[in-house]
């Protein structure tokens, strides 16, 4: 009995032991499988994360390709029926289905380049002042913040102000000169544009001028050069490609600017005869006539304008950015 008992107990005990060990191994396996599952989950989450990053980067790329394709596809009707005549055609007459973009090309080029010429002295002066004469101090901080604010004010506000304040001023000036006093026109748009694009070339120029190595400047000073001579023969030559890039970015901005120009340019499809006559730019034509375009060719001709605008501004911007990148890497 005793033996049996013990044997039973032993067996029992054994059983217990085996059960225990079974339980043990089970729980261990559970932990292991949980761990395995956990790391699988983490790997999956990691892969999901990496993949979604790639997808987002692709979305941006697809977006740009989509924009290009849409513009090209929608302007095919106009390209097919008008061809190259479209660019040099001098009349824009939607009623008779005659579309020539020349007046708008001329208007865009005139406004942008006049604005550029007006703005360059100012933006270069700001760049030199902030980059060379006084990089720190409250006065330069004030100037820097003002420049940032000029870039921040919405273009429709510039347009409104121009329409109410600047147009009468220009009209008075035109009366004095004895030209037809329109007030609105290419010159007024250029003035507004000039104010709007100053910040772009100015802030970029400042960065570039600050990057001139001080050893170069000190070398020139030690040879007895004055401050003006250092700026003229060290700083400006060293930064000329960067300053050029700033001008390009300003130009890109001026070409594409819509609202302020639309409000003060006068919106006529005639070829401008002087810089004081009213006209139209590519962007302002689109803004004015796009919702009125009632047949395919008209709409398509407007989109072709948009396509040209797109290509020109994008090329200018990318060249500008390339120059900056090259400059900062050197």
């Amino acid at each position, binding site marked *: 009995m005793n033996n049996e008992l013990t044997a039973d107990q032993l067996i029992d005990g054994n059983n217990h032991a085996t059960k225990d060990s079974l339980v043990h191994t089970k729980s261990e396996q559970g932990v292991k499988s949980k761990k395995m599952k956990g790391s699988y989950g983490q790997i999956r989450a990691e892969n999901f994360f990496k993949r979604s990053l790639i997808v987002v*980067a692709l979305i941006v790329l697809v977006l740009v390709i*989509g924009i290009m394709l849409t513009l090209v596809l929608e302007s095919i009707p106009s390209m097919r029926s008008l061809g190259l005549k479209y660019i040099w055609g001098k009349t824009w007459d939607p009623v008779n289905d005659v579309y020539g973009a020349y007046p708008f090309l001329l208007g865009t080029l005139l406004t942008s380049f006049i604005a550029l010429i007006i703005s360059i002295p100012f933006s270069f002066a700001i760049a030199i002042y902030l980059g060379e004469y006084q990089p720190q101090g409250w006065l330069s901080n004030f100037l820097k913040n003002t420049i940032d*604010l000029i870039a*921040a*004010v*919405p273009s429709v506000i510039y347009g409104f102000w121009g329409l109410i*304040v600047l147009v009468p001023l220009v009209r008075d000036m035109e009366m004095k000169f004895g030209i037809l006093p329109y007030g609105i026109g290419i010159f007024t748009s250029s003035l507004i544009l000039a104010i709007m694009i100053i910040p772009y070339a100015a802030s970029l120029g400042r960065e570039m001028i600050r990057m001139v190595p001080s050893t170069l400047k000190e070398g020139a000073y030690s040879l007895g050069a004055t401050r003006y001579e250092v*700026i003229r023969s060290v700083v400006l030559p060293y930064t000329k490609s960067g300053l050029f890039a700033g001008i390009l970015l300003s130009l890109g901005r001026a070409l594409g600017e819509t609202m302020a120009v639309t409000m003060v340019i006068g919106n006529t499809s005639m070829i401008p005869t002087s810089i004081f006559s009213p006209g139209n730019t590519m962007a302002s034509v689109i803004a004015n006539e796009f919702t009125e375009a009632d047949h395919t060719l008209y709409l398509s001709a407007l989109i072709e304008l*948009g396509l040209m605008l797109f290509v020109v501004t994008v090329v200018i911007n990318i060249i500008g950015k390339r120059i900056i990148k090259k400059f900062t890497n050197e």
Partner: protein
Amino acid sequence: MSSNIEKVKIKYRIGKSKTVQAIIVFIAFITTVPLIFIIGYIFKEGITKVNWNFISKIPAPVGESGGGIVNALVGSLMIVITASIIAIPIGIFCGIYLSENRTGRLSYWSRLAVDVLQGIPSIVIGIVVYFWLVKPFGTFSSISGSVALAIMMLPILVRSTEETLKLIPFSLKEAGLALGMPYHKVILKIIVPCGISGILSGVTLSVARVIGETAPLLFTAFGNPYINTNMAKPMETLPHLIFNYATSPYDEWHDIAWGAALILLITVLALNIITKITTRKWKVQL
């Protein structure tokens, strides 16, 4: 004798340098005049028009006095918030991708795409979104306006995120990885929180940029004289209202436009100042 000539020469050169400096300083500070003039003029004209009625009523018909711009305020708010919801995740994730993968074919093309996006004139984006979302559905809608604004926000968001995250020391990331943290946690719980101020200032900057945009909304959100909260219908926005009323021949409408311009200007300036403070407080380089 010769030393005298030398002295004169040096004096001449110093004088020239000083004159040039004076001219440059003068020209540089002239630029602040138009801005101060514009802001001053808008405050002067606008401040008398803004009152409770102005921000709580819809516009009155021509000839009647009074009326407000609440439709534009509601519309602008809704469109910009929707645009932010669309653009912020995409922009930040794309920025993370570009800062994590500095070389490689996809990052090269993606970076180029962001550069291209930044250069596209806003009116062209308006045209494209018109063909994507307005023409197929046959009606102008505020959601299409939001998409157009979101496209304009993207480049700023991507750039600011990328530039901020690039500055974060590599050792932080290595430390996280060495502790066995998975990659996505390292990015989301170490790298992004470290750069959060730069990312946030990118967000405010992009909102400040698009809140005053009119051109992409001309053919998308279009405008609406009544309050509308349906995203599938046309909606008025502040800049579009200013454009419409400013180019109208009625003086009452000009007054409304001045008031609206003041509100828009204050919003934009406030957003810019917030950005400035964030960047200065955390010393972010944008």
